[in-house]
């Protein structure tokens, strides 16, 4: 699924950008086009990812979970084993190579939970670039560990105090920085959203996931999987694993959105599988947004900070419309249960975001045959989320630990 010359996928996408950025987007589009044409670029990318991150990441056969559900064989694509702990590295490293080519000296990025910020700060350290990360003030408070690491890697983390003080506001603020410092700065967009060429470019870098997974499933299972599951925040890990399977007619692709407190609760981030969302244009692109009748964006909610976003990849919106991807959602509670089960059965700790894909798969896998296989994309690891996960489980020893530490530090 490629964009048209104005950056649209069907009627979704585009580049709704202030004029100041026009020129820089032209350069970006050209450089991106050159990279796509140049096989050496992809080679360089693969080599970087295999020496700095640990690509190819494994495809793990989850034998215990498969037995537990008695349905299809469950395979897990292990993006959690990437350097910095999530698929975000794929995109960021790719954009890093692009920045080097463009000769820019500074990168900026938005971050919600901090995962993309961590990845960008890491890439900036590796490539010797200046780096500023915009992060909603709420998130800075909630995700101090990530802020700590970003700062330690030399990045400046700017708490964004506007709006809902979360991801979308960080994106707005990053755009404000970009229009101000456009000449030497590249904005490393973190997901398959935003103005063209970001949705397609980010999906391209992430497509390494599905390319590897297809080879691996053929090797271990002998044929294509029945279904492939991915969680959907902005949509980059989903696009990353789906892309390679789009033309495999027998493979069903399932995106799992954040059900929060439930589809009827008003407290969720379901953009594609609920009637609460409607078409809109914001943050530079056209897609389904959670917005009110006036077009003002709504508050969203998910236990997973990385899924807690008002928009969604325009490519996924197009694929939803064309029925090439099915969208479901999983509630916070279902997600915590799926996480718990996966830890106990497989010794694997999916990120809260990724746990949505697990929850979605667990609902359906039992109805398939043990001769079939499914793939779940584990976009990241959960141990980075100790503060959120221990909190969500309401673990009393954890609380005591924090209280005691706090008292010690107060002395």
């Amino acid at each position, binding site marked *: 699924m490629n964009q048209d010359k104005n950056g649209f996928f069907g009627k979704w996408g*585009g580049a709704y*950008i202030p004029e*100041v950025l026009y020129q820089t987007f032209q350069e970006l589009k050209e450089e991106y086009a050159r990279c796509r044409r140049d096989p050496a670029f992809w080679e360089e990318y693969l080599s970087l990812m295999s020496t700095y991150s640990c690509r190819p990441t494994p495809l793990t056969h989850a034998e215990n979970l498969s037995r537990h559900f008695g349905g299809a064989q469950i395979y897990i694509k292990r993006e959690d084993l990437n350097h910095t702990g999530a698929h975000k590295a794929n995109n960021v490293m790719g954009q890093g190579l692009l920045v080097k080519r463009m000769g820019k000296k500074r990168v900026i990025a938005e971050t919600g939970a901090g995962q993309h910020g961590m990845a960008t700060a890491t890439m900036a350290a590796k490539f010797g670039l200046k780096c500023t990360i915009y992060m909603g003030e709420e998130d800075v408070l909630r995700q101090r560990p990530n802020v700590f690491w970003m700062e330690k890697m030399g990045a400046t983390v700017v708490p964004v105090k506007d709006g809902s003080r979360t991801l979308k506001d960080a994106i*707005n603020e990053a*755009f404000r920085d970009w229009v*101000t410092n456009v*000449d030497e700065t590249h904005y490393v967009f973190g997901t398959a959203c935003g103005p063209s060429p970001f949705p397609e470019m980010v999906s391209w870098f992430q497509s390494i996931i599905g390319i590897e997974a297809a080879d691996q499933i053929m090797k271990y299972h002998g044929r294509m999987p029945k279904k492939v599951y991915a969680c959907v925040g902005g949509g980059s890990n989903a696009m990353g694993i789906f892309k390679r399977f789009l033309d495999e007619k027998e493979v069903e692709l399932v995106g799992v959105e954040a059900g929060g407190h439930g589809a009827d609760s008003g407290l969720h981030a379901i953009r594609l599988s609920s009637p609460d969302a409607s078409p*809109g244009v914001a943050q530079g692109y056209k897609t389904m947004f959670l*917005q009110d009748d006036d*077009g003002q964006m709504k508050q969203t909610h998910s236990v997973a900070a990385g899924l807690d976003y008002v928009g969604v990849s325009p490519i996924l919106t197009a694929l939803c419309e064309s029925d090439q991807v099915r969208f479901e959602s999983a509630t916070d509670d279902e997600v915590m249960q799926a996480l718990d089960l996966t830890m106990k059965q497989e010794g694997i700790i999916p990120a809260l975001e990724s746990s949505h894909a697990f929850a979605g798969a667990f609902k359906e896998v039992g109805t398939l045959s043990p001769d079939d296989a499914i793939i779940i994309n584990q976009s990241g690891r959960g141990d980075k989320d100790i503060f959120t996960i221990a909190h969500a489980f309401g673990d009393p020893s954890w609380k005591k630990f924090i209280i005691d530490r706090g008292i010690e530090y107060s002395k």
Partner: protein
Amino acid sequence: MHLEQQLRSRLERKDILLMTHIVLGYPSLAVNREVIRQMVENGVDCIEMQIPFSEPMADGPVILKANQDALANGTRVEDCFQFAAEMAEEYEIPFLFMTYYNIIFKYGEEDFFKRAAEIGIRGFIIPDLPPEMGKSFLALADQYQIAPILIFAPTSTDERMQELADYGRGFIYCVARRGVTGKKSEFGIDFIDYLKRCRAATTLPLAVGFGIQSKEDIEALKGKADMAVIGSRTIKLVEAEGAEAVGPFIAGLR
């Protein structure tokens, strides 16, 4: 009369025009009403009324906060239309809507144009709608005779300026510098070169905005631009000294 004609006829009497900016609903429509009265009475030539949006990506901290507060006050798009209708009825200077594209898109492009035209709005400034994205928008603008105000930036190439000028009506909004609204601009040599490039690219009147704050700034623009835009400056003034301070401030600008 079209917006461009309106401005040109005013330019016959003044060496530079003044456009001001308000955020509808901030701090309240009542205060907006008073501020606009003071602006008009003190010789403002054109007013852009911003319909607040939750994601004002191109605005700096002052206007951003104003947008948020206006929404928090419960300002709806319908309120903005009604207020705008009242203003356009009351004063004869041209009123424009400034907003982000989603407000129009969500309302329905054609319905929005129709309503604005009925009210007597003369132009739209939509900072996140480049002409490539605005095919139907530009067609409707033509149809409803509402000027789509296009924007030049210092980063725009000559070629790009030509292209934008083709689509533009009313005037061209020349952004004085990189960045968002609300910060002071330096009017150095680069700026003068930039304005020359703007002038060469279009026969439309040139408005210059972003960071214009004082009589000196406006003096400096005379002969180089047709209209100076005062944005965040008056918002800050109202915040600090109340609506009554706007009249004297505007009067002092020339």
